[in-house]
Structure formats: structure tokens, C-alpha cells
């Protein structure tokens, strides 16, 4: 539950208080109750804006603002995950100790609250509560209390880290990685999925198609959403070449008619991968950069899972994100209706693990193909 945070040293002016009391934040009945507590008695039929205007003239007090913030707290849409495998780690590493060190380094400085949990003898999960500040928003809505999760699993000389795909989590993971002791005489090696150097659209697409059909214990069923792009990151060579060519082509370009160019396409529906539009797009150099699909359990064909995979920056394709969004089944009585089945944290961890390993498997296969060519 992400709730807004208000610093007690900041006083809200009339306008800010008026906006905070808007119906989307506080129900009309609650507004009247609040007014009553401040000595303002309104009829139930009073216009909401009038009541807010009167109430906004009273000085704002800290407990009231805190109460409103608590009442308007809504769960944030769950963030996608990303992962990194740290190789050449020494056997002496204790992941519990790594988390403790990171906590010591960051907790006070960045106002983070760490709650580590031991999931298994080799896996630790840490919940970090922090305040996210967005200065582009109004003062009232600038600070939000958020949570993120970092999961560490040690397997021999490899420590796998799965975490929320956001900048704060990345910073925490960087601090964690810096604490990891490596095997004597070798350097730390981070394995993360990145298609940055791959400029073959077919290979980029293949990476995703291998993932959707490669989740262990599940078969591919349906693609419901797909983003395709045709741009690639510019390398320094490209830039130098472009400078030289641009002078020659400058005159010719001006004479050319302005042509339209579609950079990306988003397709939504059922069996999107089997549509003519997608087939035409792939044939003309577009590649998949984000995909939402559902899979069917091999052991129980009533269980379906919805997954999402993509890159935070679709063009650079350097930070892979993924998540298992939902588990569901068809109603036996009415087979067209879907019913969501709740996923426990441990099940979600397991499903995300399957998705991550399918992604790494696909990435390894792509790397091999690139090396061959």
C-alpha cells in the first residue's frame, strides 16, 4: 500500500488544503464529519465545493492531513522484476551479512527501512520501505511511501538477485554487489540480460518467442499485448558515419517528399502473434520489445498464468524486466469467464524464478547464435 507522506514542517496553504479535500481523496460524508470536528456544521445536501472552500479557510493541522493521506492510500500497481547473476563469488559470502552491511550503509542515509526474511537456507528476501519524492508534482502529492523487494539466492559461486525494476532498487543492489567478496584472483562478473549490441530484429524477436514457449511446466497459449519497434541504439560508428553522409545528403533530403515513419506499434487482442499485422511488421524489420502472454499449466490444464516481459528502454534493450501478473482459471459452469486465483508470495517467487530461468536460457541461446555469426 503506497501512501502519501507529508512533512510536518510544510504547512499547506488554502488552495493546497482545498485540493487535498477533493472528492477523489475524501468522501462527502467524511468531509462533513471532518468539518463538524472543526466546528463547521453543514447540511448533508451542501455542495461539496462550498464545504471544502469553508473548511480550507481553517488552519490545516498535522493529524487531519495524516488522516486524509491514510484514507486515500491505494495499492500501487505491482512493479515488474529484473535480475542479475553475480558470478565468481567466494564461498565465504553470507547473504544475511551482505544485507546487514547494506542496511548499515544505506538505512540512515536514505531513510530506508529494511525487513529481511529468510526464505530458505540459501535464499533471503528483504523488504525495503522508502519515501519516493517526485518534485514534478504538487507539494501535497510529492512524497509517497513505497515498498520494494530484493531477493538474494546463493548457489555455489553464483549469487542471483531478483529485484523490482526501479532506480532505488538498482541502487540498493549496487551497494549489495559492492559488498560481495569474490574468489581470489578473479574479478566479479555480473550476468544480466541485455540485447544492446544486437541489431538483428529477428534475433531480438526470437529472444521473446523462446521465452514464451520455454517456461518449464507451462505451454504457450495466447499473446494478448505486444509492442514492436524498429529503432536501434546509435553507436559511435553510426554517429561518425552519419555526420559525413548528412552533408552530402542534406540537399537531396530537402528535395525529397516528407515520408511518414512508424517507429513502434502496440497490438492488443487475442493471438496477436498470429495476426497478419504482426507478421507484416516482422517481415518489414520490426522486433518485439514488450509482450504480455498467457500460459497453460502442463500438469493441470485449468490453471493459466499471465506473464509480461520486456525492456525498460525498448531501443537500448539493456535492462530486462519480467513478472508473472496473474493466475487464473475458466469457470467450469461458464467456460468463457475467467476467475483469478490468488498467488501466495512463495508461489509468485517460484513462478518468477521459472520465468527468469526461461529468459536466461533464451538469452544464452541468442548469445551463442550471435557468436556463431
Amino acid at each position, binding site marked *: 500500500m503506497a501512501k502519501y507522506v507529508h512533512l510536518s514542517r510544510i504547512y499547506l496553504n488554502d488552495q493546497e488544503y482545498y485540493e487535498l479535500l477533493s472528492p477523489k481523496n475524501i468522501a462527502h460524508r467524511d468531509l462533513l464529519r471532518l468539518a463538524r470536528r472543526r466546528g463547521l456544521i453543514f447540511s448533508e445536501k451542501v455542495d461539496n465545493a462550498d464545504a471544502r472552500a469553508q473548511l480550507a479557510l481553517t488552519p490545516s493541522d498535522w493529524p487531519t492531513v495524516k488522516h486524509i493521506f491514510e484514507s486515500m492510500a491505494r495499492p500501487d500497481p505491482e512493479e515488474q522484476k529484473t535480475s542479475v547473476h553475480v558470478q565468481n563469488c567466494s564461498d565465504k559470502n553470507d547473504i544475511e551479512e551482505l544485507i546487514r552491511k547494506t542496511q548499515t550503509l544505506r538505512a540512515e542515509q536514505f531513510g530506508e527501512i529494511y525487513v529481511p526474511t529468510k526464505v530458505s537456507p540459501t535464499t533471503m528476501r528483504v523488504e525495503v520501505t522508502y519515501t519516493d519524492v517526485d518534485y514534478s508534482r504538487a507539494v501535497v502529492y510529492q512524497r509517497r511511501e513505497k515498498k520494494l523487494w530484493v531477493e538474494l539466492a546463493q548457489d555455489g559461486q553464483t549469487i542471483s538477485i531478483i529485484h523490482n525494476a526501479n532506480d532505488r532498487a538498482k541502487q540498493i543492489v549496487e551497494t549489495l554487489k559492492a559488498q560481495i567478496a569474490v574468489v581470489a584472483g578473479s574479478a566479479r562478473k555480473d550476468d544480466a540480460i541485455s540485447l544492446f549490441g544486437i541489431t538483428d530484429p529477428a534475433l531480438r524477436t526470437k529472444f521473446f518467442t523462446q521465452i514464451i514457449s520455454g517456461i518449464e511446466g507451462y*505451454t*504457450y497459449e495466447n499473446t494478448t499485448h505486444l509492442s514492436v519497434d524498429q529503432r536501434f541504439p546509435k553507436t559511435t560508428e553510426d554517429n561518425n558515419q552519419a555526420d559525413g553522409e548528412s552533408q552530402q545528403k542534406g540537399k537531396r533530403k530537402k528535395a525529397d517528399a516528407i515520408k511518414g515513419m512508424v517507429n513502434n506499434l502496440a497490438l492488443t487482442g487475442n493471438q496477436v*502473434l*498470429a495476426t*497478419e499485422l504482426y*507478421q507484416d511488421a516482422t517481415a518489414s524489420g520490426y522486433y518485439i520489445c514488450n509482450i504480455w502472454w498467457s500460459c497453460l499449466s*502442463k*500438469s493441470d*490444464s485449468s490453471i493459466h498464468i499471465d506473464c509480461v516481459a520486456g525492456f525498460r528502454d525498448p531501443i537500448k534493450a539493456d535492462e530486462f524486466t519480467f513478472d508473472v501478473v496473474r493466475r487464473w482459471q475458466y469457470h*467450469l459452469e461458464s467456460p468463457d469467464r475467467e476467475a483469478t486465483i490468488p498467488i501466495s508470495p512463495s508461489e509468485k517467487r517460484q513462478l518468477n524464478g521459472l520465468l527468469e530461468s526461461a529468459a536466461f536460457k533464451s538469452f544464452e541461446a541468442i548469445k551463442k547464435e550471435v557468436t556463431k555469426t
Partner: protein
Amino acid sequence: MSTRISFFDVGNLGKVGVQTFLKGMASEKFSATQAAGFLLTRQSSQQVEGRYVQKIVAVESFDDPFGKKYSYERTVYTEQKFILRLESPNLVLFDSNSAGKALMGRLSEFSGFRVALKPLNWAPEELLVSFAKRFAPVRVFAATVDGLKLSPSVTVRLCFESSDDVLTHVRSFLKKKTTAFESLKIEFSYLASTWRCELRRNGSIQIYGDFDPSITSAVLELVHRHVVRTVIKTPA
């Protein structure tokens, strides 16, 4: 009882080949231990005919009046009968259901996501001409007209039924208004039996009565000829 037949075109099927699908289906054969898979009835280099079967096991529970809890396992099999063939329409689904969506996913994956599945749609009155040629005489006993604009803000849907040919009545009722039929229900004789069918604009045909392989194959053959003729008439 009735059988609804839906028709699809599979783009790139010629390049991918039926053998590719056959391989995939053979690797996912349905058995007592499998939760889903294929059961093939006929196969050749030109055509595959079979069913995609899903086994769904659910545990249902209830309380008796004395508060005792009971639970039992309920197994449901859903199956999608299909024909995949090189000639157009390439994919034919019989009584498409929720397993049909999964079947399309499997076909898409078998082909390496290289095929495009496109549901056919046609003008029922054009298909009626093909039916009239093959099964004459054909009587249209019901028709649905959709999207008839009475004014910019009023659109109506009309259903007509008659004991003789309904089309003459529809034309006289609608006079010069341009109409598009949503569906036509027809009656015709074939192999000494009378059959009733519904031709829908969304590319499906519903044959009323018990499933009969002879009328089904005759309809499939007719649709194939109709589609080939229409494609030749209106090249892309």
C-alpha cells in the same frame, strides 16, 4: 443439436508446411497422464484432422445439513475438433470453444510464430448463390438485417421469417434501402434428406440437426470453391 463450423485462413501455411504441424502435434499426443494434447484421426502431407483435448480436474466441496464437509473430484474434458489443410480455408473448427483459443496458440507455436490466423468473413447472400448452385432448390426461410440506418442517429436490426422464400419479402419491405445481411437461414435437400443451415457474415456456418459427415464434407467442399472463386474475383 447443431454443428457450428468456423473457417480461418492460415497465412504462410504453404511455406511452413503441414508436416511442421504434424511433428508438433505428434510430440503433444493426448494420453491419460497428459492434461492437454492432440488426438489425430486422419493425416497426410496435405491435411490433418483431429481434436485438441484438455482435461480439467476440479475439486468441488459442499456441506451437508449436519455441517459435515464433503468434497469430490470432477473431471471435465473440453475438446476442439479441427481440420488443418493446405487448401483454403486452411483451418476449420467445429463448435469452437475455449479449447479453440489454446489450439490456435499451439498452432502458432508449432510454426515458430510464423503463421497468421485470419477468420474468414463473407457476404451471406454471395455464399447463398454458391449454395443454390450446389443444392438447388434452396429456400431462405429467415434473414437478419443489421446496421440499417433510418436516420443518422437511429440504426435498426431486423429479423424476418417466412414459410416461403423470405428474400422477396425483405426486398419489397426495404425497397431501395441498401442492406447487409447479418445471417441467412436456408433449407435445402441433400441425399434424400432436408437440411437447415445458417450462413453468418462472420465466416461461420451452422448446420442444424445431428452431425452428419456427408453434409459436412459437402459444405466444406462448397466453401472451398466459394472462397477460391471470391479470391480470384477480387485479387488483393
